[in-house]
């Protein structure tokens, strides 16, 4: 029998970086967006819109501090209203950033190098938006520091057995680690900006944050260790954060909350909505700032595939909820299922099934994965669907639990809606500023994708005596 020689099939996929780039062109293209590109009228106009939305948030919070949480639609039995819905939604969106920066780094997925910077920024801004909600939901946010253990004259300590206290630790750790991860990723690029800026004030500001980075081989060696270890630590962290958020529900006994599937189902949902947000931001940014060489079709298609996969896990979660409603034989669980399909909020549930399960199935077709318009639209639908999922979990479960006499309805007020819209404004305001003041793509990690960045073994060997 003849021996067959295996010839590796050529990689027909679109490359992660367009051909013809050198270290200089990559550096120029990305740093010029920050240093050279004039501020356009479109940027100013957009900024005015999102900044006014952010001010709506400030106004809502100001009024809230004066009047209290009575301005919201919350009541008994529905004590967790929009605040918790939005908190869970925003923190879920943040998860894609850490997934891209940490988990894909450990898996050596090189395509992450061009989207990790702004995905991490997205994480930070989303977690900042999320953090507002539980804080103001406490009713007296000026006493929120009581959640942290510190010696005090009241001789009081937090109850460490409470999922709400776990949440404080999980979310604040997540914010801190995301911030330092993002910052150490930025240091070498800040040094690039320092060396390229012509304005002496900018040189000083970028120089201050670059901390004197000079690209020494010793520094890079320790830097890579630290980066890898941070990625290793952030990987279980990101999986734990939404798990802990799901414990806020799963530890309670309310039908629709008290299930063991919640942790994995919440994490998958978080990554699902996070990738939808990444696509919603990446598609316009790459065409406005001419970054199609670095954020290629390959990135969009791969993100769409991740979305499809996590969407199927979420669909499995919905299916299991339905199955358990029937199989458990618990009348409360089966009523919950009936209530979702036939109760007063049935349009939310049907909308959720359509936007999270039905519509994203078109991503099986390559045509929809590579068409930016369709992909943007599907991502937007998924974001709406994931928001509806949190609405269903929080509000529909609370509205009808065990006893008919305690059934109720929740109607969001204009303050609920304005606060929610305000956080979207805050998120976009931060994004708007970020793309103009920091390199939105990691320059040094893109340089590493070029073939000339790799030293061949024999080059080092032949100099040996």
């Amino acid at each position, binding site marked *: 029998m003849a021996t067959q020689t295996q010839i590796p099939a050529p990689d027909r996929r679109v490359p992660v970086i367009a051909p013809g780039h*050198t*270290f*200089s062109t990559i*550096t120029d293209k990305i740093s010029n967006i920050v240093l050279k590109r004039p501020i356009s009228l479109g940027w100013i106009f957009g900024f005015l819109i999102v900044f006014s939305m952010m001010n709506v948030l400030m106004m809502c919070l100001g009024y809230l501090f004066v009047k209290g949480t009575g301005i919201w639609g919350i009541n008994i039995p529905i004590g967790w209203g929009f605040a918790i819905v939005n908190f869970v939604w925003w923190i879920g969106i943040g998860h894609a950033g850490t997934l891209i920066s940490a988990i894909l780094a450990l898996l050596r997925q090189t395509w992450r190098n061009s989207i990790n910077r702004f995905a991490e920024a997205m994480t930070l801004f989303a977690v900042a938006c999320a953090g507002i909600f539980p804080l103001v939901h406490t009713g007296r946010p000026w006493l929120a520091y009581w959640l942290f*253990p510190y010696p005090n004259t009241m001789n009081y*300590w937090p*109850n*460490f*057995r409470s999922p709400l*206290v*776990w949440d404080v*630790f*999980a979310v604040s*750790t997540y914010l*801190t680690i995301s911030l*330092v*991860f993002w*910052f*150490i990723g930025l240091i*070498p690029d800040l040094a*690039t900006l320092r*060396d*390229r800026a012509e304005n002496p004030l900018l040189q000083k500001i970028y*120089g*201050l944050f670059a*901390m*004197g*980075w*000079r*690209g*020494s*081989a*010793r*520094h*890079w*060696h*320790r*830097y*890579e*260790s*630290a980066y890898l*270890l*941070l990625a290793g*630590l*952030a990987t*279980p962290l990101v999986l*734990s954060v939404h798990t*802990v958020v799901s414990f806020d529900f799963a530890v309670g006994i309310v039908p629709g909350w008290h299930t063991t599937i919640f942790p994995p189902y919440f994490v998958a949902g978080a990554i699902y909505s996070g990738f939808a947000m990444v696509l919603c931001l990446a598609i316009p940014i790459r065409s406005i700032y001419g970054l199609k060489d670095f954020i290629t079709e390959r990135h969009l298609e791969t993100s769409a595939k991740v979305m499809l996969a996590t969407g199927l896990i979420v669909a499995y979660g919905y299916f299991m909820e339905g199955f358990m409603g029937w199989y458990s034989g618990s009348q409360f669980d089966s009523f919950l299922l009936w209530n979702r399909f036939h109760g007063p909020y049935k349009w939310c549930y049907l909308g959720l099934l359509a936007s999270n399960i039905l519509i994203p199935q078109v991503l099986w077709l390559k045509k929809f994965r590579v068409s930016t318009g369709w992909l943007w639209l599907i991502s937007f639908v998924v974001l709406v669907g994931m928001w509806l999922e949190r609405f269903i979990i929080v509000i529909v479960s609370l509205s009808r639990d065990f006893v008919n006499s305690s059934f109720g309805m929740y109607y969001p007020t204009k303050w609920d809606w304005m606060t929610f819209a305000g956080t979207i404004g805050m998120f976009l305001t931060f994004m708007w500023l970020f793309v103009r003041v920091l390199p939105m793509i990691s320059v*040094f*990690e893109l*340089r*590493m994708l070029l073939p*000339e*960045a*790799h*030293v061949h073994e024999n*080059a*080092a060997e*032949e*100099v040996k005596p």
Partner: protein
Amino acid sequence: MSMTTSRDVTVYESPIEGSPSYGMMAEFDSAEELMAAAHKTHDAGYQKLDAYSPFPIEGLAEAIGFHKNRVSLVVLIGGMIGGISALALQYWVAVITYPTNVGGRPYFSWPSFIIITFELTILFGGLSAVIGMLGLNGLPMPYHPVFNVPAFAKATENKFFLVVFSSDPNYDAARTKAFLASLSPRMVAEVPS
């Protein structure tokens, strides 16, 4: 005043006559040239040298004789401190100083303490990775003699540099300069201190 060698290497004289020098710098065009030069310089007996590149190059640190990297040890210690102190705090609060009877369950209900222990392990470990990396690298250090060479601004863009420090026992301004020039660099310059 400058002189040229075979491959049009510009060799600059010391900018200030008789000033103490920090070392001798050579500039290269590619990662491969820098790697080869780093190996040759190290093999020639120079101990105190450093290489600079716009991105991490695998094996470069080893080529200049840098093997010890204590970042992972710092992270291990930091993570353990975080985990142990979190568990100790929860034990002290729940059992000793503020015991709360919840449905007759034991005060030391450790399964419910796992999450905060885990989170603080990650928090302390992650912060030690950052602070340890910066601290061991001696950063922040806004001023460094290598920045005095104007061409070094390209070290964060597309050029590669090798510096032999004057503290090296084998360092001799003229001989080191000639040696670096023989590695076919783009230029050789003395780094003023």
